């Protein structure tokens, strides 16, 4: 639920910017915009902290295929932006947002959120030996299937898993 909110909240931010909403009168407009943007970013960050309470899983290396998915969000997110830019008023925004929210929530696969990228998370599709495809969010940079080895994954839902471990050795080439 919280993750869905994070994933869709950017829609509201874009809308607010488009409407030139200002919360601090004395400061230039961009200060307000920055504050708007910082909300979803911070919320996403805190949701990363919350994942530690989720149930644990592991991948022990029986992986057949690995696919990079950092760019997979782009089409759907561009869609969000265009929607936000073309929404004329607050009332429409509320409805459009609710519809998007409900669909995102039930689709369960689009929980990934471009803001995770700002928190140095990468997205991957992992196919296991038994041909089960899962979505993996991790800080590590993975290049080949044998790299996929996680002891402490958290289950966001049955298809999406997140790894909160650090990326000490690999972080430089990310």
């Amino acid at each position: 639920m919280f993750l869905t909110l994070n994933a869709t909240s950017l829609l509201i931010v874009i809308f607010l910017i488009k409407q030139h909403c200002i919360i601090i009168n004395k400061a230039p407009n961009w200060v307000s915009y920055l504050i708007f943007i910082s909300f979803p970013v911070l919320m996403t960050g805190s949701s990363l902290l919350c994942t530690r309470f989720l149930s644990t899983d592991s991948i022990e290396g029986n992986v057949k295929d690995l696919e990079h998915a950092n760019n997979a969000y782009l089409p759907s997110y561009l869609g969000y932006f265009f929607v936000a830019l073309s929404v004329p008023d607050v009332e429409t925004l509320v409805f459009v947002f609710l519809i998007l929210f409900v669909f995102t929530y039930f689709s369960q696969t689009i929980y990934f959120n471009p803001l995770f990228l700002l928190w140095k998370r990468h997205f991957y599709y992992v196919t296991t030996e038994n041909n089960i495809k899962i979505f993996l969010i991790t800080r590590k940079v993975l290049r080949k299937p044998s790299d996929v080895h996680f002891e402490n994954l958290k289950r966001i839902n049955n298809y999406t898993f997140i790894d909160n471990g650090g990326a000490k050795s690999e972080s430089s080439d990310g």
Partner: protein
Amino acid sequence: MNHLMAKIRKRGNDNKYRKITSDDNFYKLPEDLDNPIEYLPDHNLDEDSWFVISEFSKKPYCLDILKNNFESVEYLQLEKLEIDKIDFIFSYQDKNEYYFQRVLSSHIVSKKLLYIGDAFEFKENTKFIVINDIPDAIYLKDQDKLYFKKLTSITSIFKGIEELYKEATEEETREFLEQSFICLDQGFSSEKVKKSNRKRIALAMDTMKNFNSDEKKKIFDYIKDYCPNLERKKGAFVVKSDEDLKSILYGIDQRYYTTPVKNEKRIANSIIPINESFK
């Protein structure tokens, strides 16, 4: 990492395995797994020993999940509504050990519970699964061996494993009782043969097949020697009860023996071929 999985009863071809939880060690590897006995249906197991089936992954009743590498992320999370549908649970531990426990309705307890810990906690209508100290079966992947104590408790987990538990059918029992060396009396018939004797009949029929007529005669003389109370009519043994039948079946299995010192006559309640057990 360790995972506790459940197999649920469900129609159709969907994946019936669910993940319950991870991280905890639910079972410990028993210390008495050395010296297991290759499964013999007629063997009475000592309390601290286990039966074993070697090369288990090649057996038709082996589960697919044991043949493939295990990844917990492939399985859905167990939903609360599915708790009553659990067929059996198994714990995957240390990348090699699988501990199976069948889940009967008596294992799922729904009760008011007072938790006694640092703080007392009262919970109404809690449902929990009782985890046994000793699992019903253990599969060690590196050895490819399945260990268990009672075949009847794992027949619901490994479908088809009951073929090991040979029991003569009604027809086979009738056929056995109609043989010339048996003479039925006092209304004893195949319907009155109890389960344990049906098991013995299945084995005895296999044994008899390998005997030639000389050996058969030797066996009948041997039974006569050890069971003087068994009545005979025209050279056939009179079977009036299940007990009489058991004496003959024990004889066919050559379970009567005499101790070398003091010459005491005895029956072996359970047997293992010696070279087998010292393999």
